[in-house]
């Protein structure tokens, strides 16, 4: 039986930030991290850069090589947690080995969701998800050895489009099949989707919207063709399923921990069971705008909640105030950033927007009661973080509404008192 003060299941951005959160307050307690993957440290969003050949596998790290030793944290790779015994504070890993913890963090993240498709089978060659380093490595190897003439991607969300970019950089044309009537349906509004679509079409991608794959046909255990709901057929030897992710809650399935779609946590990142915390993509955490819980599987939430959970495992009482979706995406040199509610029913919101197609400039602010609750910036993303600040601090924009969409938007457009409060900080005299 091994014992540890802090046990963290999951070694991605959330687990790593939890290590740092613990060490900020407890320099000595033993930290043990379990990972079901073979790699010491890699950044999930970097797998598309790896696929595109922009960086090596080694460069997918997001912490230095000395990180775990500097942090005095022990990492066990290839060690999935298989059973949680809350009552005895124990986790069973493979081969019947048990680890006893004082405090546990479940940071198991998400897993790709694969819809039921006729003809789909795990052993079929040429079907991939695009979530882990292993996914990216097998996809890259497959492409290198087979050199497929095209690739079909199911799902035009951020993951699907970043996979598309990676493939296009390897000169493989892609066809993207999306069930919704537009691409990036969760991140962008209609205009934003159009801008990205026309941009991607110019870079050799085709889109099939309002459509999905209903059947996969194979030959010699390799995918050969996909058949769409519309009846269209696409010959392909490569399919990437990127329709979204679901919280990876399997470790708590047989426990008494409260789970809905994700593990439910309070604003201190406690689960419903004492001494067990959860953070990141696996959780439903407090929402920023509404009094409810939400699934927001993005890096900033995983990092923030991981760090707070780590601190609270040491006995701190730091509150997580909730975040909203935010994404930064750059495809073929076109940058875009979005925050919060980007595509609301217009009746309850005030919408400001400016579009200049000739220079790919689009900016939109969604307001409720003179506060920004959502924002899209395409083309020019300079100073995007100021919008994030205005949303987070719920600052009234009534006095400078007309300036919000200016390319040169900055603190000078804010009333002097607000500006000085933000820039100088209330605790500092001038």
């Amino acid at each position: 039986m091994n014992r540890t003060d802090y046990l963290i299941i999951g070694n991605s951005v959330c687990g790593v930030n939890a290590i740092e959160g613990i060490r900020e307050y407890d320099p000595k307690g033993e930290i043990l991290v379990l990972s079901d993957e073979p790699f010491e440290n890699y950044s999930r969003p970097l797998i598309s850069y790896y696929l595109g050949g922009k960086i090596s596998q080694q460069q997918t790290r997001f912490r230095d090589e000395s990180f775990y030793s500097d942090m005095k944290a022990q990492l066990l790779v290839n060690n999935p947690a298989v059973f949680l015994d809350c009552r005895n504070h124990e986790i069973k890993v493979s081969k019947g080995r048990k680890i006893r913890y004082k405090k546990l963090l479940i940071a198991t993240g998400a897993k790709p969701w694969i819809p039921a498709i006729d003809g789909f089978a795990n052993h079929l060659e040429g079907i991939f998800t695009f979530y882990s380093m292993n996914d990216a490595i097998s996809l890259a190897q497959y492409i290198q050895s087979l050199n497929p003439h095209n690739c079909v991607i199911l799902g035009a969300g951020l993951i699907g489009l970043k996979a598309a970019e990676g493939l296009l950089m390897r000169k493989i044309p892609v066809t993207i099949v999306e069930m919704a009537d537009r691409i990036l349906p969760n991140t962008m509004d209609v205009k934003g989707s159009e801008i990205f679509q026309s941009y991607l079409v110019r870079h050799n991608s085709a889109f099939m919207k309002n459509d999905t794959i209903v059947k996969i046909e194979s030959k010699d255990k390799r995918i050969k063709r996909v058949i769409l709901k519309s009846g269209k057929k696409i010959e392909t030897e490569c399919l990437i399923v990127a329709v979204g992710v679901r919280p990876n809650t399997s470790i708590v399935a047989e426990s008494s921990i409260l789970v809905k779609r994700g593990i439910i946590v309070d604003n201190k990142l406690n689960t419903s069971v004492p001494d067990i915390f959860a953070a990141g993509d696996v959780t439903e955490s407090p929402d920023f705008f509404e009094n409810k819980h939400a699934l927001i599987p993005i890096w900033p939430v995983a990092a923030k909640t991981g760090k707070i959970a780590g601190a609270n495992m040491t006995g701190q009482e730091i509150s997580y105030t909730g975040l909203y979706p935010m994404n930064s995406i750059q495809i073929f040199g076109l940058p875009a950033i979005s925050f919060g509610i980007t595509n609301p029913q217009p009746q309850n919101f005030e919408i400001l927007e400016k579009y200049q197609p000739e220079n790919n400039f689009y900016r939109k602010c969604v307001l409720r009661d003179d506060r920004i609750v959502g924002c899209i910036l395409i083309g020019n993303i300079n100073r995007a973080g100021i919008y994030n600040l205005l949303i987070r601090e719920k600052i009234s924009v009534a006095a400078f509404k007309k300036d919000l969409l200016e390319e040169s938007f900055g603190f000078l457009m804010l009333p002097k008192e607000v500006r000085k409060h933000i820039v100088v900080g209330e605790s500092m005299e001038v």
Partner: protein
Amino acid sequence: MVKNSKRKTINTIIAREEFCIGCRLCEIACITAHSKTKNIIKAFKGEYPLPDSAIVFEEKGHISFALQCRHCDDALCVECCITGAMTKKDGKVIYRKELCVGCWMCVMVCSFGVISPDITASKIKSKCDFCLETGKPACVEICPNEALVLKEDNEQD
């Protein structure tokens, strides 16, 4: 407002717009301090490309001020960096260009909007390093009217 529960930072650069005369010498000093020769004439006459200034200068009518990285305690840019390019070292936020892939997460979360993207290069244009080499921020040193001042030992808990 934008501050953290634990403020450990010693030395913060403060912008005082009432005193800023809009001369933009801070930008010249920043560029010179990060040039190869560190000499204003040699740098501006002989170095190509010159580094970008790490200062965001705002000016409208007779109001102006210069902003640079606040080196936040719980820096969101560090938290959100997907490569580890933004990192905390001795209380300062340091940017390691070679690790950056241009994902713009830091641009997305920097509350002060002082991280400027170079879209073509997929790198950050320039990031204030608090003039770690000399220990004295060049922009503060050169400011003729104390519109940029160093506030020291601001330790509170």
